[in-house]
Each structure stands twice: as structure tokens, then as C-alpha cells.
């Protein structure tokens, strides 16, 4: 009979560690091949001249220098993107919270209303863009038809929406509010975690509904507001598809966002080197803004920490 090998504790731990890596290897390999490698490759390419055919040639900081100091469209696209982020994020938060407050009531068919408000989030962005293209159409769109009495009353020309360079960015932001139901679901989940006792106690103290929202609901919702705020900033800096479909960056580059310019650099100018440099500049900008936003964490009230 073969002698059974005695396993020490350290050998067992080692075996477990190896097994852990084996089981995690599909994910780890995916992370390295499809995550880390492209990221590092793009960092390298950002220091090269690479036209997507042939080999990259090292040119040092030339791509960054050109973008930052001799590219007017770079700054236009960056400004457009900042405008989008700084307006769409607060507006998105406001609409999402309002919807959540409205849909946090116990009325008949509430789950149907919640589903309806969430539904736009499952619509493809292409279909959504075309739908709003029709709705905002300056001459035939439903929105201007509905607003016609207002235009007549103020004796003004109908708004040009996405066809007007001074309104086009705002049109895209307004359109984005249609998907506020996504953040609403997160707010709702957190609202329903707030203990009823707080509301009952405040009622005894004579608080009205508005005071309850301001003093109880909103402070206790700050973790989810903060989460949506950070995610909104990151997503806002990546805005691209809607402008690509609806306005093609126009009119007059007013909706030519950073992501759009990056895309054009790569696909239309065959300039993968500069496109990669743009991606890294965007990463740094997003990182800085996110770090600044994280400073607001001290105002976030986590229910579990109250003791």
C-alpha cells in the first residue's frame, strides 16, 4: 500500500493559491489580453506616428504637442464636451431624483409606471436618436408643433433645436434626460431602504412632506446620488453616438465632441497615434475631474456608519 503523503499547512495554502489562479485564469487572461494589452498598446501608440497600415514610428511627444498647442478643433471639441458634462450631469441627477420621488408612492399600478420610465434605457441609441431627430425636427417635428402657440404668443421664430448651433448641445442634453429612468431605479432602491421610523418620528414632530424630503430622504440618498454623479461624469466625457447619428458634429462643429474628434482622427485621418494621444489626454482629464468630484464624498451620508 502506497504511503500517503502528509500535507503541511503551507503546502495546502500553496495548493489553494494555485487552484485560485487556475479558476480565475479565464478572467485574468481576458483582463490581460483584452484590457491591459490594448491600454498599454494605445499608450505606446500615442508616442508614435501610426497610420494603421505599416509599422508605428516613435516620435516622442509630437502628437501631444500638436494637439495641445496647434489644433483649434481639439479645443473646440473639448469645450463642447465640458459643456455637455457640466449641464447634463446635474440635470440628469435632478430629473432622476424627481422621478424617483414621484414613483416612490404606493399607488395602484406603480410598477407599470416604473417600467415605463425605465423603458427608454433598453431602446437602442440609434433608434432613440432617430426618434428624437423626428421629434426635434425644426419644421415638421412634433415638439415645435406643440410649442407653436407659445411661439405665436411671443411672436418668435420656432426654435431650430439641433439645427441651431447655439441650441444643438442643449438639444442633445434634453434628449438624454429621456433615459433618466436608469438612475431613477438606483434612487428608488435606496429610498426604499430608508427606515419608516424616521418618517413616522418626523410626522410626530410636525414635519410636512417637503421637509421630510429635504431633511430625511435626500440626505439618506446621497450615496446613490454620489454614485450617479461620478458615473454621469465619466459617461458624459465619452459622449459620441448621439452626435454621430443626429448631427454629424454640426452645425458648425457645435456638437463635435471629444469622442467624435477622436473617432475622426482614427477613421478619417488614419492617425492612430494622435487618436491614442487624445484617448490618454481624456483619461487624465476624466481622472482629475473624478478625483475633484470624490472630494464631495465627505458630504455623503452612509446609513451603516451612523453608529
Amino acid at each position, binding site marked *: 500500500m502506497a504511503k500517503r503523503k502528509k500535507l503541511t499547512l503551507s503546502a495546502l495554502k500553496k495548493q489553494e493559491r494555485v487552484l485560485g489562479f487556475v479558476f480565475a485564469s479565464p478572467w485574468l487572461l481576458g483582463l490581460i489580453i483584452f484590457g491591459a494589452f490594448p491600454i498599454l498598446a494605445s499608450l505606446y501608440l500615442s508616442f508614435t506616428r501610426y497610420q494603421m497600415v*505599416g509599422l508605428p514610428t516613435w516620435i516622442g511627444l509630437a502628437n501631444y504637442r500638436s494637439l495641445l498647442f496647434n489644433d483649434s*478643433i481639439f479645443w473646440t471639441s473639448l469645450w463642447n464636451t465640458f459643456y455637455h458634462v457640466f449641464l447634463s450631469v446635474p440635470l440628469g441627477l435632478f430629473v432622476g431624483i424627481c422621478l424617483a420621488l414621484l414613483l416612490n408612492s404606493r399607488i395602484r399600478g406603480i410598477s407599470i409606471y416604473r417600467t415605463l420610465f425605465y423603458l427608454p434605457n433598453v431602446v437602442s441609441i440609434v433608434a432613440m436618436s432617430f426618434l428624437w431627430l423626428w421629434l426635434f425636427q425644426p419644421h415638421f417635428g412634433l415638439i415645435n408643433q406643440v410649442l407653436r402657440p407659445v411661439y405665436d404668443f411671443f411672436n418668435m421664430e420656432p426654435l431650430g433645436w439641433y439645427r441651431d448651433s447655439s441650441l444643438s448641445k442643449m438639444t442633445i442634453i434634453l434628449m438624454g434626460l429621456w433615459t433618466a429612468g436608469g438612475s431613477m431605479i438606483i434612487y428608488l432602491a435606496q429610498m426604499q431602504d430608508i427606515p419608516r421610523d424616521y418618517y413616522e418620528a418626523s410626522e410626530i414632530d410636525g414635519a410636512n412632506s417637503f421637509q421630510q424630503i429635504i431633511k430625511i430622504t435626500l440626505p439618506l440618498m446621497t450615496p446613490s446620488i454620489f454614485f450617479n454623479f461620478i458615473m454621469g461624469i465619466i459617461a458624459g466625457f465619452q459622449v459620441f453616438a448621439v452626435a454621430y447619428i443626429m448631427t454629424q458634429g454640426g452645425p*458648425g462643429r457645435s456638437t463635435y465632441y471629444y469622442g467624435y474628434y477622436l473617432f475622426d482622427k482614427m477613421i478619417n485621418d488614419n492617425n492612430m497615434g494622435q487618436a491614442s494621444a487624445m484617448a490618454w489626454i481624456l483619461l487624465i482629464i476624466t481622472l482629475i475631474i473624478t478625483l475633484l468630484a470624490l472630494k464631495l464624498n465627505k458630504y455623503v451620508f452612509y446609513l451603516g456608519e451612523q453608529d
Partner: protein
Amino acid sequence: MKKLAYLALLLLISFTLAACNREDTGDRTVIEFWHVSPVGSDSYSGMRRIIRDFNESQDDYFVRGTGINFWDYWDKINIAIASNTAPDIGYHTLDNVIFRAGNNALYNISDLIREDIENGVDTIDVSVFSENQLEFATYDDDLYALPFSATVRMMFYNLDLFAEAGLTEDDVPTTWSELYEVAKQLDDVSGNTINVLGFDPSFGEGTYHQYLWTAGLDFFDEDLNPTLNTDRHLEILEWMYDFNKEYPRSVLDAFGEANQMLGINPFAAGRVAMMVANDGLYETLRPLEGQLNYGVAPIPVPDEDGVRVNWGSGFSIEMYNKNNPERREATWAFLKYLMDHDKQIELSDTLGWLMSNIPAMEEYAEGNPILEAFVNELEYAVDKVYVPYAPNWHAVDWVQFFEQGQSSALTPEQVLQQARNLYIQKRENYEAAN
């Protein structure tokens, strides 16, 4: 019930596996051909037949065709070339062959022709292609692609609308002043609504660079420096903007947008009486045969020193460098088959394109006055120059400025100045990186 479910599952798996089955190619050299006739497209069966005929015509090579949607094709082929996964043979755009040839992505076609001549084998007769197209397929004095299709732009005119306005085919304009005079007779406007517009220079495929060419000008000089800064450049831009200046911009926009939103071609719908378009519009109008009485004519030119020219873009057919002599030989055999006189006619019929083989197209067009006019216009077709520092100079780079001029957000002077500045900036940045 359970047995039935198992049977259905078995059948499903069998069909799936059968669909995955690939032809037995034996010892043949297999090559990949990417085209724009995917399953479900009108040209699918025709393209399939053309490939099958080649495979059945000999025992040495086997072509495996992959059809990709036209609008997806260009990104896919570019990414495939970049990642060294390009097919052996495929289409691309003729105007930037030089870019891929310069980066060693393509086989040298001239070498293949020379080898054929040395071996006494039938080869491709390049004299059947237009000189201009061949120039675009040439890099360093050698051919690195062959012209495949030949797009031509002409002015379509609606004879029914001409008749309503008391005009005949003899009144079809040839110069800009005639164009203006005839267009205004064709305009049909009631109040703030345009029912029919005679002509608008920016409708259809009317582009600024094409009108510049008709006046003997261009965006760039011979050294690819941006021009755009002469009085004549300004005059031509103003001519485009002012052609329908008697109508408010909002009325013109409403007219243009109505066509766009309804997804209709304004010429096919009888809303525009004259419009510059390519031969693709002829294909669009084919189902309306007998319902729409129309003709095509060369694009009108400026009254003084006008040049008969049209923007003749086209697709190239290219052999991608796989560093594999056997596949190179097989691909060359297939390319010669595709460029054959009769095959070009068959391809034209299948794809609905004018092909690059001029004698073949002359034969194909015989008896069809519209097609004949297009083929005759081939010799006046010129492709746009490839500018390495601004490959998309005519589209994204220019259109944003042009549209701002249309909406009066910029004056025509500002449009030209700002566009020129952009090209200069792009050149500086390109040179800094090269």
C-alpha cells in the same frame, strides 16, 4: 412530446452543422475575396454565380467570397489591413491607393503584368481603363491596384417639369448663366412653400470642389498647399450660396429637410427639376421607367473658360500583400478573370455600377441613352486628389465650414479663410510627426 423535442433539436443541430460545412477544396489554393454583396442583397446571387463560375472553370484555385454590407465594408477592410487580416483581394477607394501602396500593404500589379508578358501568358490590357483612374492606382510608377468601378456625376433633368414650364430638351443648360435662367423658370413656389425647385448647386452630389474644377481651380496647388484664397474661389462659393437667395434660408431648409426626413430622392419625387448626381441615381430611377421622363447632361460650366469635368470617384480592386507566392498567383488569376471584358459587363449588371473597363461599358450601354451618356462622360471624370495630411479634406474637414456659410453663421470669406487655416494647421501637424 419529449421525443418530438429531441427530434427537433437533432434536426436543428444537423441543419446548423450542414450550414457550417465548407466546400471540399482538395489541393487547390484557397483565397479570400471580400465584396459588398452579402446574403439578402440584390447582387448576392449574381456575385455568387461569378465566384462559382471561376471556381468551376479551373482546378488550381478556389475563391471563398465574403459579402459585407456596403456601409460596414470600409471600416472592416481598413481594420483588417491594419491588423494584417485583410482578404487576398477586395475593393477599396481608388483615390487613396497610394497610401496603402506606400505602406507595403498591396502587391505590385505592374510586376504581375510583366511576369505574364515574360511567360507569354495572357494578361490584363490596361489601355481599357481611363488614364485618370490609372494615375490614381499608380505609386512610384507602378500599378498597385486596378480601377474597378467608375463613378460619373452628371446633371439629371426632369423633362416632364421642363414641359410644364414650356421648355424642351433643347433648353437644357450648358453654362451657369443658362442654368440660372432655366432654373428660375422651373421654380414653383406658393407663399412660403417650395413645390418644385429648379436647381440648387448644393443638392444631390453638387460639391464645391467639383464647381471649382469646372472653373479650372482646386482646393490645393500641385504641392498640396491649400489655396482657397483667390477672388475666384470666393465668387464660386458665393454663386453656390446665392443661387436661390430670393428664398429665405428657413424655406430652403424646410424644403431640403422634407426630402431628407421622408427619405425620398428629391429628383425622383419630382421636387427638384435639375440635380447633379452620380450613376447611382439612374439605378434608383430604373423602377420608375415610363413614369418619369428624364435625361442626363454634362454639369454646366462657368460662362467663361469653363472646363468640362466631373468628379469621377471609383472603387479600386486590390491584392493585399500576404507574402505568399501561391496565394499571390491564385489571386492574380482571379483578378484577371474579374477584369475580363465579358465579366465586367456581368459585374455591371450584377452590382448596378459602371465598371472601369470602358470598351465593356460601351458595349453594355449600347441602346440605353442614359447609360451611353454616362459612359461618354467617363473621359471627363477626374478623381479628387489624395492629401496625406487631410485625407478627408472634401468631407468632414470642409462640410462643417460650408454649412456654416449656408446658414449665414459665417460669411463666405470666413468659410474659405477658416477652412484654409484648418488645412494649414493639419499640414503643420502632419509634418511635425513625419
